[in-house]
């Protein structure tokens, strides 16, 4: 039986729908009354694990799940050893640098060296500023990153933006883009090579479903 890792949060609903389209029904996870963290689909062919987005590639890398859906942002942050099989074209967002709207900074290079930058994406932020040759003090946070510049803890943040509403409502503006992100289909490399539980078939079908959607 193959095991699928699904991310809690924004990508969950679309992920469940996509698996439904390839014949694996995990919609029970969407039921607000559901508390189970793992379920088997009604046809008894696959199991789904409900985990935090950042943990999806971990379960895949260690092989406890063979197939999963995760944001490209997570792949960039964690650089897990997983097979990156398809861009699923949903869950669009972007990782951006933002500052308070009254600040005088208009691009990342305007930020003075050794500025404090708060973020959940410590690796991505570090890499980005390293490439710009800007030594920064990166402050790791786990949520409500927008508060860091509002309270004055940091000059800037590196955070995911989807519509930009949260930033706007908190008086912040995006000044530069690190990369854009969508949901990706990933798989455990060894299981993929060995085609355990007909994994390649499920991955192919899912990719085709997406290609057809984009074409229409």
């Amino acid at each position, binding site marked *: 039986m193959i095991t699928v890792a699904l991310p809690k949060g924004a990508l969950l609903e679309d992920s469940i729908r996509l698996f439904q389209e390839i014949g694996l029904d995990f919609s029970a996870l969407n039921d607000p009354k559901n508390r189970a963290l793992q379920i088997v689909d009604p046809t008894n062919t696959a199991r789904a694990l409900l985990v935090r987005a950042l943990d999806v590639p971990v379960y895949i890398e260690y092989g406890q799940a063979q197939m999963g859906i995760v944001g490209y942002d997570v792949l960039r942050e964690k650089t897990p050893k997983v097979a*990156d099989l398809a861009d699923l074209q949903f869950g669009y967002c972007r990782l951006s640098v933002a500052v308070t709207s009254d600040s005088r900074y208009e691009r990342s290079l305007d930020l003075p060296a050794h500025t404090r930058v708060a973020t959940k994406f410590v690796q991505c932020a570090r890499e980005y500023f390293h490439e710009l040759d800007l030594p920064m003090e990166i402050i790791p946070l786990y949520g409500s990153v927008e508060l860091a510049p509002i309270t004055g803890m940091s000059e800037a943040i590196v955070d995911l933006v989807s519509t930009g509403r949260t930033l706007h409502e908190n008086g912040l503006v995006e000044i530069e883009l690190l990369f854009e992100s969508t949901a990706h289909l990933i798989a455990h490399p*060894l299981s993929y090579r060995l*085609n355990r539980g007909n994994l390649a078939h499920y991955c192919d079908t899912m990719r085709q479903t997406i290609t057809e959607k984009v074409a229409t």
Partner: protein
Amino acid sequence: MTSTFMLHQAPAGARDWLPVEVMQKQWLSQKLEAVFSQWGYQQIITSTLEWVETLTAGGAIDPATVIPLQDGSEKPLGLRPEFTASIARASVTRMQETPLPQRLFYNGNVFRSSQEHHGEQMESYQAGVELIGATGVLADSEIILLLSDCLQAVGIEQWHLILGEAGLTRSLLAPFPENLREKVRYCIAHLDRVSLEQLPLSRELQERALLLFDLRGTPETVLEKVSQLKLDATGKNIVTNLKSLLNLLSETASFSLTLDLSLLQTIDYYTGIVFEVVAETERETCIIGQGGRYDQLLGLYHPQGENLPGIGFALNLEQLQTCLLRQQKLPETTPASDWLIIPENVAAQASALNYAQQLRENSPSLRVELALEETNASNIRNYAQQKGINRLAWLKADGNAVVEEVEG
């Protein structure tokens, strides 16, 4: 937070092997070494320390994975991360006069710096073989059959061979423009289809790249797909040899085999077949061994630059041990002593030592231990019970012994 340097802990990524674990490891080593010997391989022990340059000469070892050592030598030293480089060096220098082929096996520790610091082991153990100076289908099958024999001897139940052909894959990659070939290779080796699709390739080449990305399965289906691709003369020749090898293997062994022409290391010294051995337990799938043919490596170490073909494999003993533990194949306790010899008082110490020695000499396989502390009989019986010792001998000064058998 204060620094948490702990005098009483092994460093992260290092470990101690306690007696039970050592016994399991020896059980494994003895079985493997017996098979290596049966096939005519002889043990070689190479140096744990090498010049970093020696280790990285073949291009397959990333210098960042070598743990460096400082001792004031003129060039940097490092701990070996694998055996092949060391054996290649020894084989073409100090063993030059040995008739070919040389069949060598090793069993020892290797070191890898753990860059991610997730607590992966920096020191681990490998046992394996190198067959030097032999080329061709028969030599390749010897290595794979020997590998299969090893896994059977230790009792691994479910294993698969993922077999690739570095030469053939190289030849299949030849039509890609040089500036993109490395990227194509990287994407295929790392199963990164998304990046592969984004490379600026012509439609025809993109199709070829995607076909290569998924060029795996049963030998028949894969060879069928390959036969539809344009191949140069070298490529065709490799396909013919690969078919002979697969035929020979199917006539002599039965294990599950996936032919995977996308199996690549990004930088590698492999020139012919490459393979990974995968073991499956209920809970996980792990690589327990890997190997391949390297026909260009030995020339790098030969004083006159003369080249010799080579092929070998290494088994990862920790992974093997984990798999066997899950299958409950390994001994789970250390054997108890057979005798406990107790001097009744100080005057009886000499006769106790003599009595114990007599037992050992009469029967060399017996384990005989001495009670060292003067204490009462019930403490001694307690100790014997805890340690599972079934025979006690109470010694008097005159050399007489009262033997007591305890129910185990």
